[in-house]
């Protein structure tokens, strides 16, 4: 099973996990990213490169499927204006081997951080805005998977 969705709408975590559980692998790992409401943040605006996003995320998912014995992978990434507490991203993996499920889940979220064409703009209560800067740490983490 391979599912990649790039969407504005929220998603149903229980349904996504149930689909992965139903594959019969025995182990389902997931990661959910949520908007943090720190420092007076009132919204996070996610811009993306539509012509590229689906293809690029698909490529990352194929890489995970090639590296680990997975029965299923789901990746959902939202775009648009998201308020604190809203979900941004979901990565779920199913495998007969819990280590494969957990490692591939970590791999996928690391790569989403450095290879998925999204940009985040923070909107604060006082009207200020700021583009989130990429963290060198994230690029290094993604590179770490190459070794």
């Amino acid at each position, binding site marked *: 099973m391979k599912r990649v969705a790039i969407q504005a709408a929220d998603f149903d975590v229980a349904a996504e996990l149930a689909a992965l559980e139903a594959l019969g692998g025995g182990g389902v790992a997931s990661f959910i990213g949520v908007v943090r409401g720190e420092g007076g943040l009132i919204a996070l605006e996610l811009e993306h*490169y539509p012509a*590229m996003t689906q293809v690029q995320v698909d490529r990352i998912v194929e890489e995970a499927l090639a590296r680990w014995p997975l029965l299923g992978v789901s990746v959902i990434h939202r775009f648009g204006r998201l308020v604190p507490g809203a979900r*941004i991203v979901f990565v779920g993996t199913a495998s007969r081997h819990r280590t494969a499920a957990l490692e591939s889940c970590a791999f996928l979220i690391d790569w989403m951080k450095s*290879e998925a064409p999204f940009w985040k703009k923070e909107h604060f209560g006082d009207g200020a805005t700021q583009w*989130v*800067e990429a963290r060198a740490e994230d690029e290094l983490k993604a590179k770490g998977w190459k070794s």
Partner: protein
Amino acid sequence: MADLTIVYFAWVREAIGRDEERVARPAPTASVADLVATLAARGGGYAEALGDPARLRAAIDQRFVPLDTPIGDAREVALFPPVTGG
């Protein structure tokens, strides 16, 4: 050959004030960095957005590439800051 489409994202898009434009196709051996330098020379928002190539990342026809990659016969070049997905 057809013009080249350039697309901009995030603060690159904001500084330039547009999300897409068409330009006369540069020589096939020209790199993305050459294109960036040509655009930055327009001054104003272009200089602001593209004046420091170290802050930029690029894609050719929806694939990430280093800035020294030749544009060749690509249809679309994208210029943007390092991504912050996930």
